[in-house]
């Protein structure tokens, strides 16, 4: 797992850099809340890997050397919850933009809270590993019961500077559930 708990001196980012990254994540979340999906796509690099591993309840041997969260997550070559590249994301955005996606018409009301943002430099110039947590609340009215869902998780990103702007090259989303539980997927 990407971790900011231990950091080498050469990985330190400046306050200015952290502020820029924080602002970029907030803006990204806001674009999605405003349903500006095509604008959101412009924040991604065309070689993006955007994915969410599957997580399961695993019996441990009980000792701390067996507590690693990675052991609960699907690894390379295994089936993930979601595993997309730029073209896949373009298709998903095209579906949302088609005007015929019933899940989004009437649309969900969404609020994305992006928190615990931290970053460190990678060995590549202009590139950062960024960790954050999110809470997404979405609501859709109904007579019998309003449908309200709260989706929580953490993200491990790689943001890279292209031209003057930071763009997302990789994102692993770890949902705080044993699977994707919400019927229709939401970009996060």
């Amino acid at each position, binding site marked *: 797992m990407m971790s900011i708990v231990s950091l080498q001196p050469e990985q330190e980012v400046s306050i200015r850099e952290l502020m820029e990254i924080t602002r970029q994540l907030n803006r990204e979340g806001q674009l999605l809340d405003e349903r500006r999906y095509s604008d959101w796509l412009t924040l991604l690099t065309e070689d993006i890997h955007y994915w969410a591993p*599957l997580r*399961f*309840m*695993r*019996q441990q041997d009980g000792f701390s050397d067996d507590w690693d969260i990675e052991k609960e997550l699907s690894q390379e*070559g*295994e*089936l*993930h*919850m*979601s*595993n*997309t590249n730029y073209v*896949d994301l373009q*298709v*998903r955005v*095209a*579906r*949302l933009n*088609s*005007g*015929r*996606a*019933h*899940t989004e018409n009437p649309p969900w009301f969404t609020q994305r809270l992006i928190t615990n943002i931290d970053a460190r430099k990678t060995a590549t110039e202009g590139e950062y590993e960024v960790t954050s947590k999110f809470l997404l609340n979405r609501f859709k009215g*109904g*007579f*019998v019961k309003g*449908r309200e869902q709260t989706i929580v998780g953490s993200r491990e990103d790689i943001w890279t500077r292209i031209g003057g702007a930071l763009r997302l090259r990789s994102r692993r989303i770890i949902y705080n559930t*044993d*699977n*994707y*539980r*919400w*019927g*229709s*997927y939401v970009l996060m």
Partner: protein
Amino acid sequence: MPLTKFTMSDLDALMSADGARVSGKIFSDQEIYEIEREAIFKKCWQFVGCENQIGEAGHFIRSRLGEQDVIVARAEDMQIHVSANICRHRGNTLCRADQGKAKRFTCTYHGWSFGLDGELKGIPMERQLEWDIDKSKLGLLKAKVETFHGLIFATFDPDAEPLRDFIGEAAFYLDTMLQRRKAKMVVIGGPHKWDLEANWKSPAENMTGDFYHVTNSHASVLKIYPGLGDSIKLMTDQAHASFVSTEQGHALNTFVMPKGLPPEAYLPIEPRWLEKPSIHKYFSEIQPEAEEQLGELRSRLRLNTCTIFPNLSVLPGAFCLRLTLPKGPHESESWCWVMGYDDMPAEVRDTAHAAYLDVFGPDGILEPDDAENWANVVEGLSGPMAKDMDLYAGLGMGTEISKPDMPGIHAHPLSEAGHRAFYLRWRAQIAASIENKETGAAS
């Protein structure tokens, strides 16, 4: 109304004898749901997982028979056992992991331990306390288990018919997926699980083969992939396609492909996944083997979707098995296993994962609109007028014919023949329970 008070005339009020008229009540009523729990989910054979998920002695997975949490385990002698996941002592959930390897299942409360076969093996302090406990009577509740080409089925009805008889005529069609090759068809991923704000019957009836919903429900996808429209036209051409209902209430939508196509065209995989030569090679080599395994006609038969009553759906085009698990009248869970062959190289397996994820995975392009519609059924039928309102499942009545070389009744591919077959079995399950209760009372 509990099953003990439910009569045939109550059943007639819910559903016509041809399955074309069903009451809105069956999708939203708690009492009907409780009747289903007794008459269907405690009685019918149900899919719980695949043999390769528990390939070695000691391997186990957790699954469900209706709402009952079960442990599916492979014992030392390689026999498969399905047991209710409830400690017989104080009722604790015994196994709390989704999968794993174990010698025994030990309860976290007082430490009673049970074997992979469900037998009670150990009670802490048994010797010191010298209390006389007959362990042979305190094993886990056991289900009957049988397999079908690597698929594990179980039922809590000790008198259930043999699984092969239960599957019946549908086997002819399921074989085109499960027996297509000498290589074994196995689980290569999952299960994915998601919650549906839906009655379990909505997904189950839909996946019998509802092609009628595709152009409307999935309009967003047709708009971005216009080519899909042609493919759907082909698959719903009555000259080659039919909605097949079987005597057992399983139903499926199928299509006989013309002769003389390139070999990979007979597989339900879209050409865009086959661009890489090595992937193309793997899939194009399957068809000659299929002819040998299935015969010429069946090797050209494409199974689109199928539901084995009550809740196992098969979607070969998306490489997956779907289980719709009931959780009350308004909720269910969808579990999805991705299927492949045991000789798939890593890159072919990745392709199968991708082909599945793209359409029916949690972020697939087809999945969300179905879930939305099924949630809307619950919503729509929860108002007071729905209790006495009938719904229509009569499309394409009178289009049914028999075909000499293929079992089942064949109806127009855009009809609702499969829905009706599903509801006739639903009706028959409840009628049988009413009859059992009456004969039970007389004796």
